[in-house]
């Protein structure tokens, strides 16, 4: 019983961490799409034609993921899956930028172009978040009521 309670607390902590992180990441980008488009362009990974659509879409899907994980149990597992995919893509993008020696700000929680350049700290933070997503996902798998609901649908 005690073990179950501890597990539940751990899973909820992971869900809150991932959800709040995505919420904090989405908010400034939604408020400044032009600034975020500049950040996306600075990564030099997308052609011009995809820069603005990506800059418009990414923050809103981050927000949708945050809400799904924290407030919609039926969508929690899907939200975590998407969060994991997005974090993997972001980590790859940061790694490529570091490898190419492009001196740009991360653009993770702000659209400020003057932020410090991408560093190993950003990569490690992303890997920790991916670990939180994995633990959170395991938590969803262990949630009997949701599994039953999913199986029914």
């Amino acid at each position: 019983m005690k073990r179950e309670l501890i597990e539940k607390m751990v899973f909820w902590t992971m869900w809150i961490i991932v959800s709040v992180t995505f919420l904090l990441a989405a908010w400034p980008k939604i408020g400044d799409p032009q600034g975020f488009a500049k950040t996306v362009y600075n990564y030099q990974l997308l052609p011009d034609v995809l820069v603005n659509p990506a800059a418009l879409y990414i923050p809103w899907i981050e927000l949708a993921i945050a809400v799904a994980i924290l407030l919609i149990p039926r969508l929690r597992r899907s939200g975590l899956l998407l969060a994991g995919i997005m974090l993997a893509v972001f980590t790859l993008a940061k790694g490529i930028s570091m490898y190419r020696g492009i001196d740009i700000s991360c653009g993770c929680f702000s659209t400020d172009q003057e932020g410090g350049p991408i560093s190993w700290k950003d990569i490690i933070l992303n890997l920790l978040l991916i670990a939180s997503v994995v633990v959170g996902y395991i938590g969803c798998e262990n949630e009997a009521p949701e599994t039953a609901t999913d199986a029914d649908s």
Partner: protein
Amino acid sequence: MNPPRTDTKNLPLFRGSLAIMVIGLVLAVLSQFVRTHPLPWYEEWSAQVIKAAELEGVPVVTLEEVDAIVASGSHIIFDARPLSDYDSGHIPTAMPFPETEMQTAFEDQASLLMPDTEILVYCSGLACEESLVVAQFLMQAGHERVVLYAAGFKEWTDRGREIE
């Protein structure tokens, strides 16, 4: 014989992911209608520095022109990237002129600069603005013959040019 068991979790997982992606898409599109200044769906990002340079009256040179400049030594070449990037490799004969330390760099190079000295400035590539900032700074300091290599170090190395 029992039929093979299907994984009932996968479909909801896929459907749920699709639902979140569609909700995000709808919100993104709707936000465009609510904003007073919606983000254009397409912008020519690669040409922004070139456009800004044209507006500021700074001539932009091509790779072939830079080839000729390097070969002839007709211009003083300034690298506007951070010093660490310059140290990792730069266009032959270029000198460091980091945008973050423009005033110091200008004082260091003052003895080389006459008002009619031809100067070429570059930075990492089309996404960087440092070279334009340096070019404007030099023009304001009385050096009118400044040209910008907007495609910068990225094009230089991508096209297999020598670095030092």
